[in-house]
């Protein structure tokens, strides 16, 4: 950052890529048309939206007609889950999610269960890895929908989506995947994954806030959610957020290229962070050592509050997170870490460090110094440390 701030909260939100800002700036300046207007100015806007649709389709190996633009991943997730259940119109629907899904999936699950839908929650093991035997057992009950995430936002743990999707579709279920945290870190191909619906968020991969994507496989049983004047082929009403859509198109193209190089860079940052933080006493890195997306490190320090580390680090210009941003405003431990069985004395000490492609080794080294100092300081201050050991 220009002011010396070290931003390591990229799983919460990312800074738009300069090429994204430039493209959006142009649209904000002179590309103001309404894509539904039939005059030239409207047509130019529609052309830009369709260009972005091709770019996003390219990122995930989809057809352009299978891409629906939304206002954010939360809306995509609402649309996907409620749309599938609505379209199934079963007397008693059953939906399957996992215990480590994003809050949005959990909240839609709660919403669905308040309307009589049975929601099964699959457990994970101590590494955050899905229990495939339980999956098979639950699939035997014939869910209409299975919703799983590709990479966990708190820990980076990767779900074997292709395998889950294969089993789920064999069992007759429609499969939705929350791929928000995987863009640019994993190759996402909807054919290889074999999923029916897939959600993306622009602002998690250097596009702006206010735009998301829902991939809907041709022929998938779903329904629109936000309805209006028939935009997005009748699948999402509302005047298109043209600058945001242009931005997510440019970002998709950028993130779809150079994945290997990005992975290598993020991998070396991850290794450096882990090495430095594991030197602190009473520490644990959460989530499988292998099988995580590179760039996300979730660490717990025994006996202290993660949010205290985040706040002291913030004073030194290092932006971190205590778990997910969405949960930061609330109190209580992370549902993801709880699901992984992280011991109580560690549970509240979670700190998430999430890097992006422009994060430098010097930045993570400095951040680790700040964290180390902060943890040492808090441990001298906090009486609960000694209580925890008694």
């Amino acid at each position: 950052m220009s002011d010396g701030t070290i931003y390591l909260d990229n799983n919460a939100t990312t800074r738009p890529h300069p090429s994204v800002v430039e493209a959006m700036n142009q649209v904000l300046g002179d590309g103001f048309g309404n894509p539904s207007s039939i005059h030239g100015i409207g047509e130019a806007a529609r052309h830009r939206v369709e260009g972005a649709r091709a770019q996003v389709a390219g990122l995930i190996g989809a057809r352009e007609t299978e891409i629906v633009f939304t206002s954010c991943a939360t809306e995509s997730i609402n649309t996907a889950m409620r749309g599938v259940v609505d379209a199934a119109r079963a007397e008693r629907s059953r939906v399957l999610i996992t215990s480590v899904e994003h809050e949005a999936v959990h909240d839609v699950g709660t919403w669905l269960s308040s309307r009589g839908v049975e929601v099964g929650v699959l457990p994970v093991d101590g590494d955050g890895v899905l229990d495939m035997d339980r999956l098979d057992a639950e699939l035997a009950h014939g869910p209409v929908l299975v919703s799983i995430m590709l990479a966990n936002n708190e820990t980076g743990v990767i779900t074997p989506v292709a395998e889950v999707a294969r089993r789920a579709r064999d069992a007759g279920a429609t499969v939705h995947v929350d791929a928000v945290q995987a863009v640019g870190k994993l190759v996402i191909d909807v054919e290889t994954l074999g999923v029916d619906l897939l959600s993306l968020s622009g602002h998690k991969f250097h596009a702006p806030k206010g735009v998301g994507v829902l991939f809907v496989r041709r022929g998938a049983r779903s329904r629109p959610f936000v309805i209006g004047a028939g935009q997005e082929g009748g699948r999402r009403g509302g005047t298109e957020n043209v600058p945001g859509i242009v931005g997510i198109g440019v970002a998709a193209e950028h993130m779809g290229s150079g994945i290997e190089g990005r992975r290598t860079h993020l991998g070396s940052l991850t290794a450096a962070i882990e090495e430095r933080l594991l030197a602190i006493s009473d520490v644990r890195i959460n989530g499988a050592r292998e099988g995580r997306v590179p760039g996300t490190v979730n660490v717990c320090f025994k006996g202290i509050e993660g949010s205290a580390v985040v706040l002291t680090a913030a004073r030194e210009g290092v932006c971190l997170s205590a778990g997910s941003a969405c949960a930061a405003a609330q109190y209580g431990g992370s549902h993801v870490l709880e699901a992984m069985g992280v011991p109580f004395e560690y549970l509240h000490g979670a700190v998430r460090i999430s890097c992006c492609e422009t994060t430098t080794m010097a930045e993570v080294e400095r951040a680790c110094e700040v964290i180390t100092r902060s943890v040492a300081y808090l441990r001298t201050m906090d009486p609960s440390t000694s209580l925890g050991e008694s």
Partner: protein
Amino acid sequence: MPRIYLDHNATTPLDPRVLDAMLPYLQSEPGNPSSLHAEGRAARRAVEDAREHVAAMLGKDAREVVFTSGATEANNLALTGMVPAGGRLAVSAVEHPSVLACVELLESRGAHAVRLGVDRDGLVSDAELETALDEGVDVVAVMAANNEVGTLQPWVAIARQCHARGVALHVDAVQMPGKAPLAVPDFGEGTVSLSAHKIGGPKGVGALWVRTDTRVRAQIVGGGQERQRRAGTENVAAIVGMGAACRFVADEASARMSALRLSEEAFLAALRAHVPDVVRHGPRNADMRIPGTLNLRIPGVSGEPLLLGCDLEGLSLSLGSACSSGAVEPSHVLLAMGVNKVENLESFRVSLGWDTSPDALRAAAGIIADVASRNRRCP
């Protein structure tokens, strides 16, 4: 000659001052308003400042403003959020398609909806509204100003009627800001929807004003943002843009209204000089419409070729409303006003901006006249 854009009811160019306000949040401030660190807190403050500006424009409390991705979502939230299962609602026949789509969805789920007819001017029938209220409804939806013809509904009186009966009211006020006084009257329960891109703000953001104590069930769930009323990471830059746009509208409302009134008169005079038989739909009385929206018809000239011809000459107009222009179908608004199908398909909309120049207005009138004369069917 630069292009002339007279389709402001479809969308407006972004006010450069609004863009200036947004840019820092697009370029260098990556904060998620839910994050605890300084970047997150700065984003949170920007969102809350914008909320104050939107509320101030309405003369209401900031806590009552919910940001959405646009007016369509705000209309979805209001209607699907307020109408109870199997509930009853009354809506005007001239609502925006996003409102009517929600009504149809609610009907498919067991709600009962009454369509309130309008008169030749597009004004909602008071008798039909009274009957609906007498028969008992849960929610009434009447737009403040119509996007196609500009008719201004007596929404202050309607709000009073609904309030007196304890009925919730939803008002789509998308076309109002900067064109008519926008102080929201005392409501009982109710909501008002707004769009940024119709008032010089960016696309991708809108707002729903929700009067305190009104029960609106969240539609997009999952994250608790917007006080549990609308989940999803806030679209910070666009929200900042909407706040700025509302602030400028509030500051400049009377100047914009008089500019629009003068422009409208100048444009109509210029057009009538070329095309004396041009017909205008909607109220004759200027107090019953917003200035700047002209729904016109030139007898013997079909709307679509006229619009396409003008487009080739560098003038952007619209048929009816932009959202329905994918297919040329008669406007539901004009149909409800009793305009027959032939006249309906001859209609086109000219919607001015408060900053449209006199030269542009004169040139536009000339282009319309030329294209019309080429396309006029022999009688």
